[in-house]
């Protein structure tokens, strides 16, 4: 065993009692199920129960343990010792990923064995893809939680430091969990291809499990002061856009819907990154110093994630504008937005980023994200709503310029004014901070 992190997790996760307890408990459960079966469908019952047991042991319980993998280190002040170790980021990542959940995989493997045997016994379709999908989703959940907790570890909020975001993610996953393992086999149309339900979910879960492991590795790299260049986040936006774009009934024109989805994904990921990573004045000062020194590698290494997807949003917006004239009305065209609105959306993102920075650069910036969210809600929801109720349509359009009755290019003009004001505010804040 040459991964000390994995070994340490094994020491902490396994005791003689637990080593015997898990198989005993699972064995007794399956035995009870066998004896109580009165309809002669033992294999089918075992299959269903073992799938649910796997979901409980690996997905839910394992997610809890993966969530604690970083949270406990931070709480117990052992994280600095880990950061001071000579372990490379990949060793640390897989040691944590599979070490913190090793006991769950121990039980999970027994469930998988029962799923395989009972699945083949009961002539269930797609047993092998189901087994692999179950495992891939487990890894996806665990890796995503490790990445999320490390990514947000610098937040001072106690709820976040205690893994609150991780728990929120676990709850959301289980609320919206597709019960794919017991759904009847159907085919999925993706990029015009008919793909079997089980194979499609297997491919999807493997793709996103790989993305999550990669994300966990990148976040561990940053935590261990191994600087990386910020290409992975926009690359993930492109992968996600391509994945989601496959579900749009494209017809002849697939480019425009793909670009629109790319824009929406980039904007969403920008907002996610903006509100989950530190945007302190110090970080931006460091960036400015690196820029002055023309240290482009250092500059990129210290750059937050959101400017990369912000830039990608503008790229998608300009591509939508450039390709808009090629779109045949009604054929493969997403009627969601007019082409100039794409630029308005990108500008809106830039404006909101500036509003966040305005609060983040304040002398007492402890609740910058909260304050920014509050003002964005007022600006994007409350004020347009009040203007609408008061019958002031033009005022409403000034706050939220997405109405079809006006020339779409006017929305670009309105949002450029918003963005200009927001940029001026950030500059003003920067000048004030330099005077202190």
């Amino acid at each position, binding site marked *: 065993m*040459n991964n*000390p*992190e994995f*070994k*340490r997790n094994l*020491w*902490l996760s396994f005791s003689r009692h637990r080593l015997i307890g898990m198989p005993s408990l699972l064995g007794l459960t399956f035995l009870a199920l066998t004896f109580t079966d009165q309809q002669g469908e033992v294999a089918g019952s075992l299959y269903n129960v073992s799938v649910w047991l796997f979901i409980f042991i690996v997905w839910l319980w394992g997610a809890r343990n993966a969530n604690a993998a970083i949270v406990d280190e931070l709480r*117990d*002040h*052992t*994280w*600095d*010792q*880990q*950061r*001071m*170790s*000579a*372990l*490379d980021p990949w060793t640390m990542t897989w040691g944590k990923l599979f070490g913190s959940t090793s006991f769950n995989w121990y039980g999970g493997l027994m469930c998988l064995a029962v799923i395989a045997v009972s699945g083949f016994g009961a002539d269930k379709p797609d047993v092998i893809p189901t087994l692999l999908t179950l495992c891939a989703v487990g890894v996806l959940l665990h890796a995503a939680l490790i990445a999320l907790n490390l990514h947000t570890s610098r937040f001072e909020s106690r709820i976040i430091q205690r893994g609150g975001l991780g728990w929120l993610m676990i709850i959301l996953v289980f609320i919206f969990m597709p019960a794919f393992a017991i759904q009847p086999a159907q085919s999925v149309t993706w990029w015009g291809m008919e793909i079997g339900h089980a194979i499609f979910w297997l491919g999807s879960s493997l793709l996103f499990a790989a993305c999550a492991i990669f994300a966990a590795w990148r976040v561990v790299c940053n935590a*261990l*002061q*191994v600087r990386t260049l910020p290409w992975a986040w926009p690359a993930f936006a492109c992968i996600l856009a391509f994945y989601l774009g496959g579900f749009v009934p494209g017809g002849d024109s697939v480019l425009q819907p793909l670009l629109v989805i790319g824009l929406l994904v980039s904007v969403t990921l920008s907002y996610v990154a903006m509100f989950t990573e530190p945007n*302190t*004045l*110090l970080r931006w*000062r*460091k960036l400015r*110093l690196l820029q002055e020194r023309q240290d482009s590698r250092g500059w990129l290494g*210290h750059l937050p994630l959101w400017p990369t997807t912000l830039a990608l949003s503008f790229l998608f917006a300009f591509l939508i504008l450039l390709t808009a004239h090629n779109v045949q009305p009604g054929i493969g065209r997403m009627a969601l937005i007019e082409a100039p609105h794409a630029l308005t959306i990108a500008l809106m993102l830039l404006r909101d980023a500036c509003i966040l920075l305005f609060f983040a650069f304040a*002398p*007492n*910036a402890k609740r910058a994200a909260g304050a920014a969210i509050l003002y964005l809600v007022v600006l994007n929801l409350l004020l347009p709503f009040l203007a609408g109720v008061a019958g002031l349509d033009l005022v409403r359009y000034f706050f939220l310029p997405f109405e079809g009755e006006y020339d779409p290019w006017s929305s670009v003009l309105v949002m450029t004014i918003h963005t200009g004001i927001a940029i001026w505010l950030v500059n003003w804040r920067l000048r004030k901070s330099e005077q*202190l």
Partner: protein
Amino acid sequence: MIEITNLTFDYPGHRALNDVTLTVANGSVTALVGPNGAGKTTLMRCIAGLETPLTGTITVADMDVSDRTRDVHRVMGYLSDFFGLYQDLTVARCLEYAAAAQGLPEADIPAAIERTARQLNLSDRLQQTSGSLSRGLRQRIAIGQAIIHQPKVLLLDEPASGLDPEARASLAELFRQLQADGMTLLVSSHILSELDEYSTHMLALRDGRILENREIKLAHQSDVHRCLHLELAQPDELLPQWLQAYAQVTLKTATANHAEFDFHGDMHAQALLLKSLIHEGFSVSSLAEQKENLQQSYLRSVAAHLEAQQ
């Protein structure tokens, strides 16, 4: 061993380190002293590569900390002020994990655990869980984890807090031993008398700036410049005048029955001075070196700094 150039580190609304430039000599034990908030912990964390400074460079054993952080960690041990341990692991496993995580070959780990446990008097505790031990013993495990890979540089932030007097004495002995083995130590503590026992250098910080970074003279060194204290059994009004006239003496204070002065000469010259005093008829009851301890040295630095500010 440690070279720091123009290091500046900011916290929101507060500059913790301000253009700090210093060198820590190879094989030295440097006492890092200063009031709370002086920047001691921040400086250690920057050296350890746990924090990224705004500007400046740090090299440890000729490796840039920001470029080769992981390589630096192989030659460095760090004990944090707020260290943590894996409470459910035995002492042996805590040490084994630390050794393996620092890249020690698997075959060398048992010997490293045995050596470290012996150095820290933990040999009889190896099979106990760390969570079941007292604060002092856990402190020793944390130190053990920091030194198990025999680093070239050891950073210790308040290593003696929580230790009883006996454990502190053995800790001082351990640090002397580590220094003798060629390790470079940077130790911060509020208890200056404790640092006095083993430090060879003093680095005083205040408000993120260096007040003083110098070598501390040890008693066994053959000094050519020492502060001496003279006591007479019988007062003599001529004493100040006589000492003033003595070539190797720079008088600091003097009365009819005692004097304090800087003496520029070796032990033979000091013996000659004593002989002359007795020959002149002064009833000398004591002539002894007045060694400035770390506390006095630090306070003198602070006083000089405050005076310079006014």
